[in-house]
């Protein structure tokens, strides 16, 4: 299982702050696969101007592999400051 943490508009679109996902039956092996899965399941997320991901609190590109127990943050455009 992996844990998704959703923030800002992503939290609102996915309607929960945190959710667990079994990546195996969905054939999600890396960040790019997760992106494709989420964008097809939540079309409002695909319309956000950019979505980044962090794996275990570090920004991660699409090629980064996901492992059992990973925590993945769904990061819409940041707007701090």
């Amino acid at each position, binding site marked *: 299982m992996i844990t998704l943490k959703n923030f800002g508009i992503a939290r*609102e679109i996915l309607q929960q702050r945190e959710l667990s996902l079994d990546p195996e039956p969905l054939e999600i092996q890396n960040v790019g696969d997760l992106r494709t899965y989420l964008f097809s399941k939540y079309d409002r997320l695909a319309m*956000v101007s950019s979505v980044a991901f962090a794996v275990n609190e570090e*920004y991660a590109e699409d090629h980064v592999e996901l492992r059992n127990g990973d925590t993945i*943050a769904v990061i819409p455009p940041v707007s*701090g400051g």
Partner: protein
Amino acid sequence: MIDIQLRSEALDAQTCLDAVASDKAGGHVLFVGTVRDHTQGKKVNKLDFESYEPMAVKEMHKIAERAMDKWPLLGISVHHRVGELEIGEIPVIIAVSSAHRKEAFAACEFVIDELKKTVPIWKKEYFDDGEVWVAAHP
């Protein structure tokens, strides 16, 4: 010296200045962000800041370390507020000290510019007719 804080209480400029104080410092530059009463012509009523706390703190540390590598600084303090803020309240304060002022100005501007690009904090603006996550849509 690096001092990074994510706080739900009001931020204070003097606290950040004190955090970077040094007898070797000749110049301190402070950036204080405040909540403006308008954005792109629309009246803002309040703001809400959400953060991915542990990662936000880590990313702010990384930016401070990069600034320390780029310039000969004595201290950096970055305090960011989370939660609901009214007009005039302070979402962020950055204080930088160095022996000479030029480096302190450059580093302080660098830290706020980078913070706005990479630190996982999200701002929602509340208007009379609705609310919007800033920068979420083109």
